[in-house]
């Protein structure tokens, strides 16, 4: 996508002015509950000689209900009146850019006014705050006394599940039988096609051969290296490998 990084500069060109407003957390939570078109309240701007002087936001009635845990919703209500504290942008140039879901970037505009949304202090607000503090002050972890002692964890004599597994395995495999050398070689080669280095245990797993027998075969066709890493691994001898090219020689 050639224009993936391309920034849409229409906002900057139009010099669209936006306001950057800092909004308290509870208020933004209330706003997320908005229904319909998303109307959350009303903004009243009193201008004096063209400049916005007094700005106040009024929260819609239906959004004042606060969802709290363990409290009745009607107990605490969010305050409705929120005067805005206006601040200048200062020397900073604050631009707003948006990112699309398809990763397109567009410049929406420049911030012309900064404001802080403050709740008008009221009983309601105080209660709300109290609630918040209580919630936050609860520790994340807590100790709880149990009524009954836990008796479900036995100390097993032997690991039952493990035991079963073990016996099952023994039954199934018995001692690993030595298969035909050629067959084993085939298995090994196909394994080494996938990976270059193998642990002996893994090879035993793959080939299901007894270790000694397998080691003998490996000594023929492979080399054991202490690759510098912890585990010692087997790999095929150079004459047997053809990793970049065609198939291996045998």
């Amino acid at each position: 996508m050639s224009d993936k990084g391309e920034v849409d500069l229409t906002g900057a060109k139009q010099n669209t002015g936006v306001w950057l407003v800092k909004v308290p957390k509870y208020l933004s939570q209330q706003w997320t509950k908005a229904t319909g078109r998303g109307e959350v309240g009303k903004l009243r701007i009193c201008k004096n000689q063209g400049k916005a002087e007094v700005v106040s936001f009024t929260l819609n009635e239906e959004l004042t209900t606060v969802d709290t845990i363990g409290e009745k919703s009607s107990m605490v209500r969010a305050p409705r009146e929120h005067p805005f504290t206006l601040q200048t942008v200062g020397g900073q140039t604050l631009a707003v850019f948006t990112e699309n879901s398809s990763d397109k970037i567009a410049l929406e505009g420049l911030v012309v006014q900064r404001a802080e949304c403050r709740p008008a202090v009221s009983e309601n607000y105080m209660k709300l705050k109290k609630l918040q503090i209580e919630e936050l002050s609860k520790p994340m972890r807590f100790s709880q006394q149990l009524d009954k002692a836990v008796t479900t964890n036995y100390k097993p004599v032997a690991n039952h599940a493990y035991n079963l597994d073990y016996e099952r395995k023994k039954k199934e495999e018995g001692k690993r039988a030595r298969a035909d050398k050629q067959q084993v070689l085939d298995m090994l080669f196909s394994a080494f096609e996938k990976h270059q280095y193998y642990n002996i245990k893994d090879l035993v797993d793959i080939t299901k051969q007894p270790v000694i027998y397998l080691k003998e075969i490996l000594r023929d066709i492979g080399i054991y290296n202490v690759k510098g890493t912890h585990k010692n691994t087997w790999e095929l001898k150079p004459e047997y490998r053809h990793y970049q090219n065609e198939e291996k020689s045998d």
Partner: protein
Amino acid sequence: MQIGSSSSSATEYVVRVPKNTSKKYNIMAFNAGDKVSCSTWTQARMERDMSNRRIYGEEETPDGAAGSEFGKKQREEARRKKYGIVTKEFKVEDQPWILKVNGKAGRRFKGLKKGGVTENASYYIFTQCADGAFEAFPVHSWYNFTPQAKHRTLTAEEAEEEWGRRNKVVNHFSIMLQRRLRQQEQGEEEEEEGEKGGKKKKKKGGRGGDLRIHDLEDDLEMSSDESDGSNGDDDEAKSKAKQDKGPKGKGKKKKKKKGSDLEGFEDSDDGDFEGLEVDYMSDESSSEEEEPEKPKPSKGEDVPKGIDEMSESEEESEEENKNEEDGKEEEEEEDGKKTPVQVEKKKKKDSSGESDSSEDSDIEGEAASALFMKKRTPPKRGGVRGSAGSSRTGSRPGTPSIDSAATSNTLRAAANKLEQGKRQTTVPSSETPATKRLKMEPSPQSSSGKSTPQPVSGKSTPSSSDVLLTEDAVRRYLIRKPMTTKDLLKKFQTKRTGLSSEQTVNVLAQILKRLNPERKNINDKMHFYLTE
């Protein structure tokens, strides 16, 4: 809904918070001082800076096929868990932005995400819509954009260097200029050498304009300071000159180095030589940065001869040319003088070189001791040399170009080298007596061997590339300026004189004994000089 008020007008706007925006709003913050005006942007590109990805990528061992291990990934995981190593995820979201404005020639910015923006309060962007209502969008993240420098900057090491020299360097423009020059050279060869070369260039170039009376100026720190200071304004103009002079300065420096090497086989105390990459055996000096062991003076002296060019390697003439360019008085003067002398000396060398090796072995110990700055008994064999010189060897066009470096190297090495060269031998009978007399440590020879007629001097017409190592020549050098043994050796290159380096050393030692020059310790090195 309009509500009129007395003096100020108050209007109410509906505030909407759209629910289903696919667009994420972010803040792009610029510093006040950067004077960024978005309206001037004609075009902009912005992408995530993925340069940190490899840190999180871990070392990727090949997956499958060659080089991979069975179950490697799982084992690595288990190992990490066991040790409690928690690796942070590489989140694309948190990566910085790279913003390029107005294309290639425009500005570049890097935008770093500011943390903690949405933790306790949310920022909203209030935009006024067409219907007068406000729409509020939550700000997803905040990026602080800083402009990136497009001009060349010094690296940390370079900056530290320059800082150390801040009191000395007057002209600051040259700092970046030199760095750029340095980088150009680096393109040609190894970085290490290039930097050294560049550094030296700068250093030496500074002295380029000064009249060089003394080789030692190369090594004295003071001179570099002075020249740097004095060059102040002229630096830029001289930068070119500096480069030219650079190799010359180096040549001189090398000469010094060789001298010191030979003088006592002691470690060079001169810290300036540390890190110098000196290739004693190199025949070619392919670029200025490599350290060809070609002493400038010897080159310089070859120039006027002309005949010498045949036997010389290219670089030598190169260096000569450079020497010429600079037009150092001293050099040329020396050259002029040396021309006849050198020839003589070469002749002498040749002849003595051709003499028995027994001579060598005999005199070896003497020479060695002589060169090791012990008090020399006046050598009384000047005259002998003269006669010996009469037997001139033919030209040796095929002589391999053996650097004078070879001579200044260990005696053995040099001797070997020379032995490889051709030595036309026309050992005259007159030589034998000369040789014998040499062995005998002749005392009857007066110490005014200096004044002993040197028939060889008559033979100032050299055959091609012959230079004689005569007492006269040595005396001439020493009168003009103090020289170390190394310097002297450089004057008498083995391939010129036809002597092996050992022989050269021996003969020179004898001459010095005869001349009994005065000594002076300059810059920790023993120099000889004569006052006539």
